[in-house]
């Protein structure tokens, strides 16, 4: 690699840091503490999972802004007063000054069971630091989110009845840089359903970061629909600290972005918890969709069910790197991971690497990976029932997506964006 190509992203990063430092009103460009954990990923630091960051570095740091547009809330949300569809449901959207407001543009009335944490207690990184071992390169999204001032949302969740929280972000203007940070503290037994609706229709970057600490027996269901466009970048990360008997379910669907890099990191701090990760990545056009997940069992009898499905068509490229770490303390761990991939074009590309790292003998761990195009016999079966080849192909692709999408909450289906994914493939874009 020549010095020129190496220094360009570095220069970009330095400029970006200066700009972000000005945003926060600070003086010198501050690189966060622990420089070893910090920096752009390079081919050397991650020979396998290196992502081409061009889509991100093509943004002009000097022109970045935090402008947003009103999300396209489904009818039910818009009509509800103050965004409260029901007493235990809160819907919020990000405004251009970094505030979370209701779909009607009002400050939120907190539903029972949700309580904002004091501003002083919600600095980014506090859960992340307990989840990711020090000395490892931090996920890119988390790094950049961490140096972007606000908007931060810190909530304490309590009570056994589920609380629903919808967060919507719409990036409609070029050079928008939206880096919301959400910190969730779930009290023992508390239940929260967090639904993200992220959409970008311009050359912009959205970098949401979730940190959550799940108390004993708490349950967090996180569903993300991230719909982008060519030129837009999505850098997501969820950093989850699970106590025993807690349940974390994460379902996400990602499509349309020029670049997406999603990095969930889950640590079962004493095992005995349940983690479900379900991801769908649909890479058409020139989309590069990248998922790196890590699940770390720090105690016995933990359980993981993970399924990542990716579809690559046109010049799309999907990367999956799933790590499961089972140290000696994690006896009786039961973990399974599956990476299923559909490769539909000769210009498209699938890279996948499920990984198991085990130092415990009494465990049940499996993983599997498949890469293929649509099954000929399935296509033929549909054709023999009078369905045209194209339509049959679309039906099968839709079926492939549905396997993950059916895990999204009912309310997700109200969003028009999801309909767009299901009804027609996104046309080939330059």
């Amino acid at each position: 690699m020549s010095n020129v190509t190496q220094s360009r992203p570095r220069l970009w990063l330095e400029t970006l840091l200066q700009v972000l430092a000005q945003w926060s009103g600070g003086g010198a460009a501050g690189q966060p503490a622990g420089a070893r954990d910090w920096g752009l990923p390079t081919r050397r630091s991650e020979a396998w999972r290196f992502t081409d960051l061009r889509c991100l570095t093509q943004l002009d740091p000097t022109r970045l802004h935090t402008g947003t547009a009103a999300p396209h809330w489904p009818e039910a949300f818009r009509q509800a007063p103050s965004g409260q569809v029901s007493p235990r449901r809160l819907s919020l959207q990000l405004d251009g000054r970094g505030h979370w407001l209701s779909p009607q543009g009002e400050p939120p009335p907190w539903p029972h069971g949700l309580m904002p944490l004091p501003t002083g207690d919600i600095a980014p990184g506090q859960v992340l630091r307990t989840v990711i071992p020090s000395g490892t390169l931090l996920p890119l999204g988390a790094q950049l989110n961490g140096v972007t001032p606000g908007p931060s949302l810190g909530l304490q969740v309590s009570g056994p009845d589920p609380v629903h929280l919808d967060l919507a972000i719409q990036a409609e203007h070029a050079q928008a840089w939206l880096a919301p940070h959400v910190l969730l503290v779930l009290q023992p037994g508390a239940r929260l359903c967090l639904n993200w609706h992220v959409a970008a229709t311009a050359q912009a970057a959205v970098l949401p970061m979730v940190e959550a600490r799940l108390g004993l027996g708490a349950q967090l269901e996180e569903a993300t629909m991230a719909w982008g466009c060519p030129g837009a970048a999505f850098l997501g990360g969820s950093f989850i600290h699970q106590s025993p008997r807690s349940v974390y379910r994460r379902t996400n669907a990602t499509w349309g972005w020029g670049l997406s890099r999603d990095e969930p990191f889950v640590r079962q701090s004493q095992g005995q918890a349940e983690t479900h990760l379900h991801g769908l990545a649909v890479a058409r056009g020139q989309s590069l969709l990248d998922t790196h997940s890590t699940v770390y069992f720090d105690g016995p009898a933990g359980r993981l069910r993970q399924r990542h499905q990716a579809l690559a068509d046109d010049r799309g490229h999907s990367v999956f790197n799933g790590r499961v770490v089972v140290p000696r303390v994690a006896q009786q761990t039961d973990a399974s991971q599956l990476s299923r991939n559909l490769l539909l074009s000769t210009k498209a590309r699938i890279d996948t690497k499920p990984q198991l790292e085990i130092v415990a003998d009494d465990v049940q761990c499996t993983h599997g990976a498949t890469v293929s195009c649509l099954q000929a016999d399935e296509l033929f079966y549909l054709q023999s029932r009078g369905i045209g080849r194209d339509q049959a192909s679309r039906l099968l692709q839709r079926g492939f997506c549905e396997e993950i999408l059916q895990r999204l909450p009912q309310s997700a289906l109200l969003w028009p964006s999801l309909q767009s994914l299901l009804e027609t493939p996104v046309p080939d874009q330059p």
Partner: protein
Amino acid sequence: MSSAATVEALNKTPYRYGFVTDIETEKISRGLDESVVRLISSKKQEPDFMRQFRLKAYAQWQTMAEPDWAALKYPSIDYQDIVYYSAPRQKEQKASLEDVDPVLLETFDKLGIPLSEQKRLSNVAVDAVFDSVSIATTYKQKLAEHGVVFCSMGEAVKDHPELVERYLGSVVPIGDNFFAALNSAVFSDGSFVYIPKGVQCPMELSTYFRINSDDAGQFERTLIIAEEGASVSYLEGCTAPMFDTNQLHAAVVELVALDDASIKYSTVQNWYAGDENGKGGIYNFVTKRGLCKGRRSRISWTQVETGSAITWKYPGCVLRGQDSVGEFYSVALTNHYQQADTGTKMVHIGPGSRSTIISKGISSGHSVNSYRGLVNMGPQARGARNFSQCDSMLIGDQATANTHPYIQSRQPEATVEHEASTCHISEDQLFYLQSRGIEPEAAVSMLVSGFCRDVFNQLPMEFAAEADKLLALKLEGSVG
């Protein structure tokens, strides 16, 4: 008795091949520079193309860094502290076996590889390599009648320079990786096999590698060429004495199969693995690759890896020929403080190429056993298929098993399927066998050998039973 209780040092069987042969050797002084490379070349009286090959490799090696991506931990190797040429001093040219030093013959006898005419293994031709040098090759005459060439690499350079020049480095380029470059610069000997068009090699070919000295690295080079429609089955065995220090073994094996040719390459690797505290043992950094050059060609790797302190080894196939077939069957067993990072690379280039990977890793003691495998479907590999199965068995709660499959596809009409699982010896299985009168150690080795059966089935008959025994031997002391 629980399986955990059963698995505790029962019997520390010493490594059976740990003796040192007392023989006068010719060694050059430690260290490596260009003059050493030239010296090795001139000692072997090589033609110019070989010298150039070595010098180019040396130049390349100097620009390279030791790879660090494997899950291996070892103190850095001082490449200037190694002797790069060591050979038993014997008569100038060994015209026949009678000229081979009896001490060497005796050594191989002790290793169970009799070389003298009357005691030879029937139907297996053996090339015996002692430290860096081939000392004898049996059944040469009989093989020659079929047009099969089986000789040391040194002889091949002299007698078949055109084949060597054409194929050496054609599968593993000199700059392929750090260790391959080092080998290309300093390799001293190894085996050469050439099977002419249409010939089915009439006997098993086998090379037996013996490291004897404690400061010499072993850098052998093997090249096997199977012409159109030819076939051969080749087996490699290795042992080394027990030293407190580590010895470097950096071999390169290249296989070339033309149209309809088939090469079956089996390894039973039993280098000294170090003691139960991880002291001593061989550092085994090996590059093995087969090129399925022709249509419908087939290359099959079977390995039983039980030795070495460090194993870094990924025998692979480049499936260039249309409808060519690559296979990899592996058992890797680690005990005590052994570390193995091993797997395969299946690079599908040709349409309709197929590959199968069956890997069985068994980790016990404090060892680390990693499977690392690449399956790559290139843009032209229409209709290609791969199936991989990687199973790990853990014995005891101090051992590590990692699985790192890398799957890359650029061809929609190619299919890749990968499965991996982890298991341990269940208490119920152990009790069931015990309740039928079978002792715990025998039960464990029965279960382990059952776990490995898919791979053992691939070994040539003569060696399958050996492998089974070797495994049982290696497991002793790990079962408790």
